C-alpha cells in the first residue's frame, strides 16, 4: 500500500539521550499501531528517524536529508531546543510542518508558520512552581540551575516571570551538567539569609545529585525540581533524598492516581500501559511529548483529508481540545503550543512514588 513518510531527528545518543530514547521508542510503537489500524486514510506511515547525538549541525544535515532525500511530509521531533532551532529554517524554507519536542519557548515565539511544539514551556513550569509557592506562602527563593541548555533556559524564564508572580529570587547558583558534587553551591544557598525554598532547574543526572547533596547538608527548606526530572529514574537515583521534593509535571506520571473524572485519565493510562508493556521501562513525560506530537499530526492529517503539507499545517494550527499526555492542546495562529497552566500538575515524591499535591 502507499506509504507516507514522516521524519524525526532525535538526540538518541549524547547528553540528551534520556529524551531521545523514549521519544524514539514511542514514535516507533505508535506508528506501528497506526499502521496496524490501517494507517491514516488508508495510507500507511513510514517513520524515518535519525540520531543527531545532540549536535545542532548534525541535526540540520539530517533535517535537510529528510526534506530533500526522504521527502517527508512532516517532521515530528527535534529533541532539544538547540537542535530544533537549527532545523527550523530547513522546514520553514521547504514549507513542511515541524512539531518540535524541544523545551524552550524560543521555538514557537515568535510564531513561525510551520513550527509547532508539544512539551510545556519552561516558563509554564516556573509559573506552576511559583503558584505552588504562593499557596504555601513562601516568596523568597534561591535558584540553582544546570549550565546546560535546559537548565539555563528555564532559569532565565523563572527570573523573568518571578516579579509578576510576586516571588523574589534572592540567590542564584549553577552547576555543570556532569558535576558530581554540588555542595559548594548549596552551602552558599544555605548561608544566604531569607531563603524560604529552593528551585533546581536542570535535567539529566545533575538534579539527582543536587537532591542528595541538599539532604546531605541538611538544608531545611522545601526543594522544587523542574519537569526535566519527570521520570522514575530520578527517584531511583536520588533515593530517599527525593522524599518531599516537589515538581510540576504532566498527568502522565500519576496516571493511576487521577480521578476517573479527569478527561486525561484514559489517554495517559493507555499510553503508560502500552509503553511499559512494549519497552519494559517506566514511562517518562518525554516519550509522552512524542506521543502528543504524533497524534496531533495524525489527527490533523485525518482532518485535512490528505497529506498536503499546507493543509496538514493548517489543521495542526486548528487543533482544539486535543487531549494528550501533556494536557489539553488548543492551538491557534498565535499559539503553536496550545497548552495552559492546567496541563501541569504539582507532584510530590513520597516514599519513592509520585503523588498529586491537592
Amino acid at each position, binding site marked *: 500500500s502507499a506509504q507516507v513518510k514522516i521524519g524525526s531527528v532525535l538526540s538518541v545518543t549524547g547528553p540528551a539521550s534520556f529524551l531521545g530514547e523514549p521519544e524514539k521508542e514511542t514514535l516507533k510503537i505508535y506508528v506501528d499501531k497506526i499502521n496496524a489500524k490501517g494507517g491514516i486514510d488508508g495510507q500507511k506511515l513510514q517513520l524515518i528517524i535519525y540520531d543527531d547525538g545532540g549536535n545542532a549541525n548534525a541535526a540540520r544535515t539530517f533535517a535537510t536529508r529528510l526534506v530533500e532525500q526522504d521527502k517527508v511530509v512532516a517532521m515530528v521531533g527535534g529533541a532539544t531546543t538547540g537542535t530544533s532551532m537549527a532545523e527550523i529554517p530547513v522546514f520553514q524554507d521547504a514549507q513542511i510542518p515541524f512539531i518540535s519536542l524541544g523545551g524552550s519557548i524560543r521555538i514557537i515565539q515568535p510564531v513561525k508558520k510551520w513550527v509547532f511544539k508539544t512539551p510545556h514551556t519552561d516558563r509554564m513550569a516556573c509559573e506552576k512552581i511559583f503558584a505552588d509557592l504562593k499557596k504555601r506562602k513562601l516568596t523568597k527563593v534561591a535558584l540553582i540551575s544546570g549550565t546546560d541548555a535546559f537548565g539555563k*533556559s528555564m532559569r532565565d524564564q523563572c527570573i523573568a516571570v518571578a516579579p509578576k508572580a510576586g516571588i523574589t529570587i534572592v540567590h542564584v547558583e549553577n552547576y555543570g551538567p556532569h558535576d558530581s558534587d554540588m555542595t559548594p553551591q548549596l552551602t552558599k544557598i544555605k548561608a544566604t539569609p531569607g531563603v524560604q525554598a529552593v528551585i533546581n532547574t536542570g535535567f539529566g543526572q545533575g538534579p539527582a545529585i543536587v537532591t542528595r547533596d541538599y539532604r546531605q547538608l541538611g538544608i531545611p527548606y522545601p526543594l522544587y525540581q523542574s519537569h526535566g526530572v519527570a521520570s522514575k529514574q530520578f527517584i531511583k537515583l536520588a533515593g530517599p533524598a527525593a522524599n518531599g521534593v516537589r515538581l510540576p509535571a504532566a498527568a502522565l506520571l500519576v496516571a493511576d492516581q487521577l480521578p476517573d473524572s479527569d478527561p486525561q485519565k484514559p489517554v495517559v493510562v493507555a499510553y503508560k500501559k502500552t509503553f511499559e508493556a512494549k519497552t519494559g521501562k517506566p514511562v517518562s513525560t518525554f516519550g509522552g511529548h512524542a506521543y502528543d506530537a504524533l497524534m496531533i499530526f495524525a489527527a490533523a492529517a485525518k482532518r485535512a483529508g490528505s497529506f498536503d503539507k499546507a493543509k496538514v499545517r493548517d489543521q495542526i494550527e486548528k487543533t482544539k481540545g486535543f487531549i494528550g499526555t501533556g494536557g489539553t492542546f488548543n492551538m491557534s495562529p498565535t499559539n503553536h503550543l496550545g497548552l495552559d497552566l492546567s496541563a501541569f500538575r504539582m507532584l510530590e515524591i513520597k516514599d519513592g512514588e509520585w503523588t498529586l499535591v491537592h
Partner: protein
Amino acid sequence: MSMLAPLERFRLLQRRRLAAAGASKSILLDRFRLLRRRRLISLVPIVAIVIILPLLFSSAYYYRVAALVFLFGIAALGLNLLMGFAGQVSLGHAGFMGIGAYAVAIGPTAFGIPPVLSFILGALLSALVAFVVGRPILRLKEHYLAVATLGFGILLAIVFTNEANWTGGPDGMAVPQLILFNWPLRGAAVWYWILAVSFLVGAVIALNLINSPTGRALRAIHDSEVAARVLGIDVAQKKLMIFVISAVYTSIAGSYLALLDGYITPQISGFLRSIELVAMVVLGGMGSVAGSLVGAAVLVILPQALTLFDEYEHVVLGLIVMGVMIFLRAGIVPSLAAAFGGGRS
C-alpha cells in the same frame, strides 16, 4: 663459503653497482623535476572531483554534505599545518572555529558590522588570540601542549556557554545571512561552490607554504628542534606563526559553518569537535593536504552512511576508525600513495 673472492668478481660487482647507482640517480632526478614543476599536482584530482560531483548530485542534501566535507576540510587543513608539518598537537582548535562562528553571529547582530566584515574580523580575532595564547602555550611539548590547548578550547566553550547575553547561551543563537552584492548566499548548492573554491584556495596556500623556506623550517622543527635552532631557525617564532595561520584556517571554517547553518550553539567549540578535527587530520594523513580533505570526508560522510546500522552506528564507527588506523597507519592518503606507486602526497 669460498675463500677470498677472485679479483674479477669484485670488479664485476663494482661495475654493476656503479651502473645501478647511475640508473637510479637519473630516474630520481627525472621524478624530482616532475615534482618540482607540478607543485600543485595533487590538487588536480580534487579540482576534477569538485567539478564532477555536482553531476551526480540528485538533491540539495548531497550539496550540503559535500559542502560540509570541504568546510571541515578547511579546518582539518589548518590543523594539519600545525600537527602534520610542525608537529605541534592541538586539542583545542574547535575554540577557533567558535571564534569564527560567533564573530559572524555577533558582529552583525550586536554591533551592526556587515557579515563580510565580521567574517574577516573573526579571522583577525582568531589570529590575535592565537598570537597571544600561542606564545606561552607553545613552549610546552607533546601531551602537555595537548592539555594546554585542550584547556584553551574548553575555556572558550565555557565563555560561549556562559556569556548568554552575547551568545544566546547553551541554546545557541541565529546567524544572519551573508549577503554579497545584494545577493543573499543561501542554498546548499551555492555553499558547495563557495566552500569547494575556498578549500582549493586554502590548499594552494598550504602547498605554497610547505614548499617554502618557512615550510621546510617547520618540518625540520618537527624532527629536531635543537638542530633547527643551530641552523638559525627561530623555533618559537616559527611555531607561533604556524599556530596563527592554522587558527585562521580553522576560524574561517567556523565562520562558514555558522553562515551555512544559520544557527550555532557552543558545541561548535566543544572538546568533542576538537577531537573530531584531530581525528580528521590523522585519519586522512598527517602532513598530507589531500589527506585533510579525505579525513574530513570520512568523518562527515560516515555518520550519514551509518544511519543504516541504526543503534549499532557507534559500534561500526568505532570499528572503522580503529580499522583505518591499524591498516593505514600513516593515514589514508599517505598509506595508499605508498601502496600504489610510492608517490608522495
